[in-house]
């Protein structure tokens, strides 16, 4: 072929070809077309035809595009990846080694957040799971009641023994009914003479297992509680008594002088139940007890199981005036109203405000607060991770540029960044598991969950964690992936490249978010502790220090034992006071209908009673503000006198304490009438967060405990002496004691716990936020090294430079404070509402929180900014 006469193909054709033909085939295809062009001309076709054909062919190459696409697709998914992965991996590893600090912050922060979230989630889940394990738990309801009379109404979770049978017989919606009577701790004697104090002893109808379907290890659940004088033991109790669960059946157990046969052994009650059943005695053992026919008692828990598809609202409306179907006249006579409610059993633990619960209640508010804190912590940690990853990736702009030049396409870049973020987040996941495992035992002491650290092996937990982590990782990877991969590679290599500050707005938003949360948490923590403190130092109105309480279980014989108790204990040198009462503060009191005798007034009220003896008010340091204390020299004081508190005075409608003295009151606790001889200042005989209700003191032989006021020194010896004295009076009762201040303060345990938890997690959350801020400050400083260097050269002082770098971040913290404080105020107000005696949030608290947040931020940022300000300008300007 002669190369002399070269014909050039038409420009249009060439341009078309370039546009249409796939790049990978361009070279040879273009060559082919040109060769054809030559040949056509040489074979005499004519120039124009040849040109036309060239253009035609050029357009025709479009058919190759589909092949090209398919090829690319295959390549991406088959050939490339292994080699690319190892390259990415190497780069990621190198990056981690080069910036150990940064990565440590990043992975660590996320790991801590994940672990904390998991711990909180476990707690929240547990609290919410109370009473859900029973089969058909969504059909099981408790029937509490409210007794209302003019001026007040009181709620009771315990009602009469007549309600359950009435509900079962009168309403077809009721499948089964159950009564429970918690007797509490009882002295138990075995055949071989061993004695135990057994807690959580209950009486229950034979339908017990229809409601609380604990598994029977021995015995038949349908028959075990049918006969009188039989009982079922929990596994723990059986082991305690007989060592071997198998031998328990058929044995005889004596409680309070009566023999019972063990008719079954059942599994232990799960911790997330509002009762704990150690021993369940058959209801039939009560025989024909008159109290069971009385509608006016509040003694028994009543449950119903409704049929499926029952209209609950209608049923609840129906049963409201249940008692009116039976004793309406009596109720009206007393000027009261009995209202019955339908309470889902699942709501009892967290929502019930009917009082008299068998176990300390949880609080739904607390659960919400915890849930929110948990989510917030995760939120902060996740934001942190994203923020730091994003900032970091912008420093890699040059790397991205290089990759693009070499030929990486956008999707593989995205893949790389996503992959990296994913790997980092998975590392966090592993670290989170480790942290969780180590921290859990300590945490569980605060919270008391019945799990151990191996809960993380639970598949649900693991999957949840992985999903969370992956989610955060992907989120973190997306932003840099999308933004960076869109950079124009050339601009990377220009001198300004690599110092761009895209996404600054996003970062600022994230920082504000984190610190707002921190501010809220600081306020919350301060609130919780202040409230706790308030409750604990509140003047209780009685003396709880150095009070030793000896509970009396089983019988107490006033005749033979009263004098000895007063004398034997009173004679001990260390004892300053001895008194007996039906209960001690914090342990629950009796309540009875009470009214002013008929001839004067018809209003019947429900009042709380404590049955005491002469020295009670003195021993407990109650303050008598009108009238006098009980006095042995007045013979009528034995049973015929009342000491009432200020609230009772108000309740009966007397205008002053003095007016109350001398008034006569009739009590439903036996129908006796007695005269008010004195009025005492309110004291907290129930838990401190409740309003003080009216209380009446009367001398009667209902003895539940002996209280000894002891001297403060040499307590161990005192205990020994008391034990000896006890043995001399009560030879067959095991010696048991507790200190009133401990047992009373135990009420606060749930709040103290919560306070500790809130404190811990607040610190954690703030720590994580600070980590984030620190990392960002570091990047900001790094980015501005040149600027700082130049300023320094022109004479800026270290302090002004520090200020320059810090000011931006501090502005953000200011915004956080402005947003966070109102939100915090709302949150704590809601939480505080559950307390009858609460602190008032004051400006000082909020100011303090703001200052703390600010100080923390300043500290965090300053380290970096000072470092930057101190840098030697020659270093930073070296590369110019």
């Amino acid at each position: 072929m002669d190369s002399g006469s070269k014909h050039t193909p038409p420009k249009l054709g060439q341009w078309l070809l370039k546009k249409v033909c796939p790049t990978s085939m361009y070279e040879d295809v273009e060559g082919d077309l040109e060769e054809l062009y030559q040949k056509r001309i040489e074979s005499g076709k004519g120039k124009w035809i040849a040109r036309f054909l060239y253009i035609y062919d050029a357009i025709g190459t479009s058919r190759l595009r589909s092949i090209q696409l398919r090829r690319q697709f295959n390549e991406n998914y088959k050939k490339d990846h292994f080699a690319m992965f190892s390259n990415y991996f190497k780069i990621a590893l190198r990056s981690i080694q080069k910036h150990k600090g940064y990565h440590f912050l990043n992975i660590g922060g996320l790991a801590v957040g994940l672990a904390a979230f998991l711990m909180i989630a476990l707690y929240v889940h547990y609290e919410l799971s109370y009473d859900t394990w029973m089969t058909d738990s969504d059909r099981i309801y408790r029937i509490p009641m409210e007794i209302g009379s003019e001026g007040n109404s009181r709620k009771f979770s315990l009602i009469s023994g007549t309600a359950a049978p009435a509900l079962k017989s009168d309403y077809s919606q009721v499948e089964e009914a159950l009564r429970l009577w918690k007797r509490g701790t009882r002295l138990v004697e075995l055949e071989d003479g061993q004695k135990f104090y057994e807690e959580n002893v209950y009486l229950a109808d034979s339908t017990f297992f229809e409601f609380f379907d604990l598994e029977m290890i021995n015995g038949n659940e349908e028959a075990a509680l049918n006969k009188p004088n039989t009982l079922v033991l929990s596994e723990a109790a059986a082991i305690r008594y007989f060592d071997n669960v198998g031998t328990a059946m058929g044995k005889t157990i004596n409680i309070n002088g009566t023999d019972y046969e063990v008719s079954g052994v059942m599994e232990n009650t799960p911790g997330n139940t509002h009762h704990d059943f150690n021993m369940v005695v058959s209801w039939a053992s009560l025989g024909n007890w008159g109290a069971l026919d009385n509608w006016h008692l509040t003694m028994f828990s009543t449950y119903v199981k409704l049929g499926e598809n029952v209209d609950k609202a209608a049923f609840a409306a129906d049963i409201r005036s249940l008692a009116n179907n039976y004793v309406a006249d009596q109720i009206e006579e007393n000027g009261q109203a009995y209202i019955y409610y339908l309470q889902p059993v699942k709501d009892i633990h967290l929502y019930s405000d009917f009082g008299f619960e068998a176990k300390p209640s949880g609080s739904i508010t607390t659960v919400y607060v915890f849930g929110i804190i948990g989510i917030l912590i995760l939120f902060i940690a996740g934001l942190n991770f994203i923020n730091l990853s994003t900032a970091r990736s912008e420093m890699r702009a040059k790397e991205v540029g290089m990759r693009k030049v070499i030929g990486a396409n956008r999707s593989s870049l995205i893949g790389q960044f996503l992959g990296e973020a994913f790997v980092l987040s998975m590392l966090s996941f592993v670290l989170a598991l480790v942290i969780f495992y180590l921290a859990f035992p300590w945490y569980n002491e605060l919270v008391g969950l019945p799990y151990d650290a191996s809960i993380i092996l639970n598949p649900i937990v693991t999957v949840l964690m992985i999903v969370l982590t992956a989610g955060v990782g992907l989120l973190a990877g997306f932003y840099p992936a999308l933004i960076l991969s869109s950079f124009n590679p050339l601009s990377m290599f220009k001198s300004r490249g690599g110092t761009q500050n895209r996404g600054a707005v996003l970062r600022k938003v994230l920082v504000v978010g984190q610190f707002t949360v921190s501010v809220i948490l600081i306020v919350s923590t301060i609130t919780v502790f202040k409230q706790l403190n308030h409750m604990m130092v509140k003047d209780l109105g009685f003396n709880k220090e150095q009070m030793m309480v000896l509970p009396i279980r089983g019988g107490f014989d006033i005749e033979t034992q009263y004098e000895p108790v007063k004398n034997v204990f009173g004679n001990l040198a260390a004892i300053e006071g001895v008194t007996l009462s039906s209960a001690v503060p914090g342990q629950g009191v009796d309540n009875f209908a009470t009214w002013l005798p008929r001839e004067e007034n018809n209003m019947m009220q429900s009042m709380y009673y404590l049955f005491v003896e002469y020295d009670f008010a003195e021993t407990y340091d109650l303050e008598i503000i009108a009238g006098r204390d009980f006095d042995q020299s007045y013979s009528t004081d034995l049973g015929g006198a009342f000491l009432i508190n200020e609230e009772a005075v108000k309740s009966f409608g007397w205008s002053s304490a003095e007016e109350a003295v001398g008034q006569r009151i009739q009590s439903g606790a036996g129908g006796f009438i007695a005269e008010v001889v004195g009025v005492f200042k309110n004291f907290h005989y129930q838990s401190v967060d409740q309003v003080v209700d009216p209380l009446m003191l009367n001398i009667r032989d209902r003895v539940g405990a002996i209280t000894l006021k002891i001297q403060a020194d040499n307590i161990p010896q005192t205990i020994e002496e008391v034990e000896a004295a006890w043995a001399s009076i009560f030879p067959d009762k095991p010696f048991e004691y507790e200190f009133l201040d401990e047992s009373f303060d135990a009420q606060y345990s749930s709040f103290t716990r919560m306070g500790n938890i809130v404190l811990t997690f607040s610190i954690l959350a703030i720590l994580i936020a600070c980590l984030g801020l620190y990392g960002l400050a570091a990047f900001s400083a790094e980015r501005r090294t040149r600027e700082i260097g130049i300023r320094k050269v022109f004479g800026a002082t270290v302090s002004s430079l520090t200020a320059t770098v810090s000011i931006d971040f501090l502005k953000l913290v200011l915004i956080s404070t402005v947003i966070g404080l109102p939100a915090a105020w709302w949150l704590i107000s809601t939480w505080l509402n559950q307390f009858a005696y609460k602190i008032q949030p004051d400006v000082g608290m909020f100011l303090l929180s703001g200052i703390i947040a600010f100080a923390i931020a300043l500290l965090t940022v300053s380290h970096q900014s000072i470092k930057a300000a101190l840098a030697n300008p020659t270093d930073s300007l070296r590369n110019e």
Partner: protein
Amino acid sequence: MKVTELGALEELVLLTVASMGEEAYAVHIKEEVEQQSGRSFNISSIHTTLFRLEEKKFLQSEMGEPTAERGGRRKRYFSLTAAGIQALQQYRELRNRLWDLIPETLINRR
């Protein structure tokens, strides 16, 4: 044994490339095919067929040396792969089988 799907033009091109040895590049292949079959073909069809065959792994291609006549551009040379040879043989056998099934009388009718 499942016979691989091979279009008419694909088989034609494949056979042609097989017979050409060293010089099998797009324009040359086109000329050869046109000469043998007596029909004319679009260069695009030839290109498409060649690349499709390459996709199916019946052909492999190699870039040659830059040539002066093409202004420094390289040519793409195609050759058969083992799979390609196998595909051709399969088709040959298929055809023979089918031919054998045809009654004598039909074939020999003039």
